[in-house]
């Protein structure tokens, strides 16, 4: 059946089975390939998006569970203050290597600093340990989150 979903402020109508994961609607139906497939079981976080501002693994989020909630993806995260700070910190700190997991890392990190302006190391562990990086960029991710949070706190 057809579902109307709101992604990055735009409403799209998609005709798929209700149990279809949001990930594949984004990537294959809408052609928004910034959100990545890693595991299909919410084990790696590569597919992380925001649903009403809360990070969610789109690979296990069925399309019929979303309703009128607002979906935000990596393509639009730079439009949010937290997202823009995270992206800048990611580039300043040269976090990225292969980059494949970084869409998900950035979505998780943006949600963290949007809700927590002074994340501690254990806050970062809790928010980010669901996101695997096979290139092992964890140390720089941690530094970049702290930088972004600091600029966020300073920026008010």
């Amino acid at each position, binding site marked *: 059946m057809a579902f109307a979903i709101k992604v990055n402020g735009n409403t799209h109508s998609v005709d*798929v*089975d209700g*149990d*279809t*994961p949001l*990930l*594949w*609607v984004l*990537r*294959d*139906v809408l*052609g*928004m*390939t*910034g*959100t*990545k*497939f*890693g*595991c*299909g*079981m919410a*084990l*790696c976080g*590569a597919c992380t998006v925001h649903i009403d501002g809360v990070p969610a693994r789109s690979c296990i989020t069925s399309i019929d569970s979303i309703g009128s909630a607002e979906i935000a*993806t*990596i*393509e639009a*995260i*730079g439009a949010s203050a937290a997202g823009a700070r995270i*992206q800048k910190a*990611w*580039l300043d700190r*040269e976090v*990225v*290597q*292969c*980059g*494949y*997991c*970084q*869409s998900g890392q*950035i979505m998780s990190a943006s949600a963290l600093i949007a809700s927590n302006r002074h994340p501690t190391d254990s806050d*970062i*562990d809790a928010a*980010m*340990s*669901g*996101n*695997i*990086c*096979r*290139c*092992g*960029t*964890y*140390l*720089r*991710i*941690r530094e970049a989150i702290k930088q972004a949070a600091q600029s966020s706190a300073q920026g008010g």
Partner: protein
Amino acid sequence: MILDRILSGPSGLDQSASANSISRRRFLQVGASAGGGLMLSLRLPSAGRDAAAAGTDVFAPNAFIRIATDGQVVLIMPYVEMGQGTYTSIPMLIAEELEVDLSEVRLEHAPPNEKLYANPLLGVQVTGNSNAIRGAWQPLRQAGAVARTMLVLAAAKRWNVDPVTCRAQRGEVLHVPTTRRLTYGELVADAAQMPIPNNVVLKRPEDFKIIGTAAKRLDTPAKVNGTAVYGIDARPPGVKIATLAQSPVFGGRVKRVDDRAAKAVKGVHQIVRLDDAVAVVADHMGAAKKALAALMIEWDDGPHAKLSTEDVAQELRLATLNSGAVAEHIGDARGALAMAATKVDATYEVPFLAHAAMEPMNCTVHARKDECEIWIGTQAIARVQAEAARVTGLPVDKVVVHNHMLGGGFGRRLESDGAARAVQIALHVDGPVKVVWTREEDIQHDMYRPYWFDRFSAGLDNNGLPIAWEHRFAGSSVIARYLPPAFKDGLDPDSTEGAIDLVYALPNKHVEYVRVEPPGVPTAFWRSVGPSHTVFVVESFMDELAGAAKQDPVAYRLALLDKAPRAKAVLALAAEKAGWGQPLPERVGRGVSVQNVFATYMAQVAEVEVSKDGAVRVRRVVCAVDCGTVINPDTVQAQVQSAIIFGITAALHGEITLKDGRVQQSNFDTYQMLRMNEAPAIEVHIGRSFEPPGGMGECGTSCIVPAVANAIFAATGKRLRKMPVDAAALKQPL
């Protein structure tokens, strides 16, 4: 910020056409000389200069540089970007000599062309073996210098002045006495008419402006906003999505398929049945996966239906009881062993490992009647092209391959099995099809880092110094399959690297390798490959010798390094920075390792904590590295951090096991990765050197595993001779 800096994918240039036009022009030919050194020569292509191409709108003096009349500089990347930073370091080499700002260049993936883009050290067009910078160091600086020289000559001719009075800088040629300037864009047409110089002078290191700086990466802006295009993101118009189930036992066949339920899934187009796999073709991956789960497939498991890891390990263990090919023979190890005051014997083994790159295996193919077009992220584009030609029966030049960013490679994407599989499926599909493996397929149909078994005997003199060293090991040779000519007399350079030509002074040494291919289990390169095994066993055993000699592990090693000053320097530096010898709490220990592999010297000290229930946590790693001339120190640091995390992942979690012929691990729950909360602090100290650059992508992985094992020994007194770490064995006795 240039977001579309990388020209890529279906929207990119027609790369085969661009390759053809380049091949009509002059190009740099690079080959390995008989002596093993680099030989550079310039030659005319057989077709001679193409007047039209050389005419007006582009200056392309070689296969790596294209400058347009608007001044746009495009650099063609012979090595792929999979995280290791080649799309920054390779442009740094060219830009240094071409005298352009890195911020002004655009990059293009090289098309398949072994003649133009082979790695000169390997002879094939691949990115691997930590060889990109080593292979590019001379020829790509030379390529930049040739282009710069021709631009200067063109300007001098235009001004009718002596070329020595002109200088290239920031994309312009300056006539120094008059300060007249011409941009590279304005010189394109004239430069294309200049003779290609036979000799160009490369800059002296003290004149480098780009090499040696922490230049910002060129590939990252598109990777933080979702616009970077990986192979899995290719979307040629009309593309369908497929996923597949391959025989769960290697070598098995499809016996029977009931696809009624699968075909009924909304969005499913067709089921493709191959001899040893079944694929579902659908509108999207959600439908394809749902239908795959609904397929009823009966398999004929074939000859390996009962295979287990224990069978493989037993065969290797037995193989080390018989002699193998002699990889190194110095002095008389057997005789010295008989005279030794103390003897030390040990066996080691390391498991099969999966690559688990974050981007699952995928390949998009449009198989037309007389042409095959492929979209993929690959470390070996020419191999993919050749494999697709073989499967389709088309001539190689009828296979067009578009390369992309790689979501991790680690050796997995040196293989063409995924492309071959996608082409097999595409031959049954009308229009383009993207074949995406589930994570479970990716892990259960990987080609694995080989299982190895090692046997050591050493003899110490009265002072505890090693006077005899015997080492025999057995395992698969990846090189023998991948590059058969490089497997000679029972030996290959990968399997033995890190086991021979050690940094230590060992007067009597004998090393043998026994090639044993595991039945049915495909093996492949994996980050640091041979050294991921050899350095673990050698550095663990060296620790055992220090223990038998009742000496400090660092001091024991330093005493054997007088003839290896670079190794001695990194070891001393790592030990000093790590606070070697300073007291630690109970069940916390430091372990050390030192190596020279991939032409880079490295030492690491790991600090490890072992809980009462045996859980191991790596708290801190200090690494000292001498990789010769550093192109980009930030990338060197990043690669060390990355490779250490990769190695700790293997040491603590990494193991692929087989039961009833089936791989028992399937996803990140059973094949675990190190995560943020487990990542140690890592300090990297880079030595200053003007030696030629060494490889940096892999050496950190081989070095960390023995450092961790040795630290566990220091913390608990338990010597781990088998990877991964067995927490149960480390439990504190009550």
